[in-house]
């Protein structure tokens, strides 16, 4: 967030400097993608948490058990994704070859 704000507030003439070879080829947050290509599925866990946080923020009656409901919904989303992946694996690997 800080990096993004810095980019937004950076004069246009300096933006070329930020993205130039002179700045080195190091990782640039919010510009370059994370090097998570082998473990991309890990990004689904915070995604499930974020969805639950936002959805429950709108839907809950009181915030007394907000985080409990968020954790429950997060678990349900993750279980749903795992179940979907397992079902697709069985379908593609076992059922389709039999057709």
């Amino acid at each position, binding site marked *: *967030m800080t990096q*993004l704000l810095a*980019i*937004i507030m950076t004069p*246009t*003439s300096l*933006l*070329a400097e930020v*993205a*130039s*070879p002179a*700045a080195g*080829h190091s990782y640039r*947050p*919010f*510009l*370059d*993608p*994370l090097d*998570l*290509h082998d473990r*991309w*599925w890990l*990004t*689904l866990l*915070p*995604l499930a948490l*974020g*969805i639950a*946080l*936002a*959805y429950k*923020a*709108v*839907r*809950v*009656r*009181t*915030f*007394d058990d*907000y985080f409990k409901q968020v954790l429950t919904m997060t678990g349900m989303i993750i279980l749903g994704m795992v179940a979907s992946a397992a079902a697709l694996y069985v379908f593609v690997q076992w059922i389709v070859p039999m057709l």
Partner: protein
Amino acid sequence: MQSKNPDEVLQPIGGILAAIVPGLGYLYYRERGRALAVFLSITGLFTGGLYIGGIQVVDRVDDEWWFVLQALNGPMAFGVDYLHQNHFKTVVERGPDGRDHRRLPLPESAARRPANEPPERTLTKSLSRVHEAGTLYTAMAGMLNLIAVVDCLWHVPPGRRRSETSGRRASDQVSR
């Protein structure tokens, strides 16, 4: 099936505020806790998507259908797209040596002579799952903000309490 809350009426101001900044509609209704939770969760998802996939995940020109969902986040999605299109998106053009050259979409970059100078460090769009994950984060943030906007559009007017027997957040109003 849940019955409709008779206290809830069309609130254009609340809906517009919610569409401008996530959570602002709830602040208009003086639901500070809900406003903070909506703001942090939706902007967190959007920022998380940018962090994971880079600024390329918001692209009004090349990924227009994804941008339809991302635009539901409000002006922040348009701001990020403006930055991407005008400051960071790689421009490919034919150089004087007859080869394609990649440069930034900045006037300074256009004035450079690629044959004489080393190439600029441009963004390369990831084709991997990381890009998809980043795009998914920002699109989900937009769809969740749409739920908040609709909720703010049909809401109990500010300063008026929901009745205790109706409305899914009646006890919230009573407890405050």
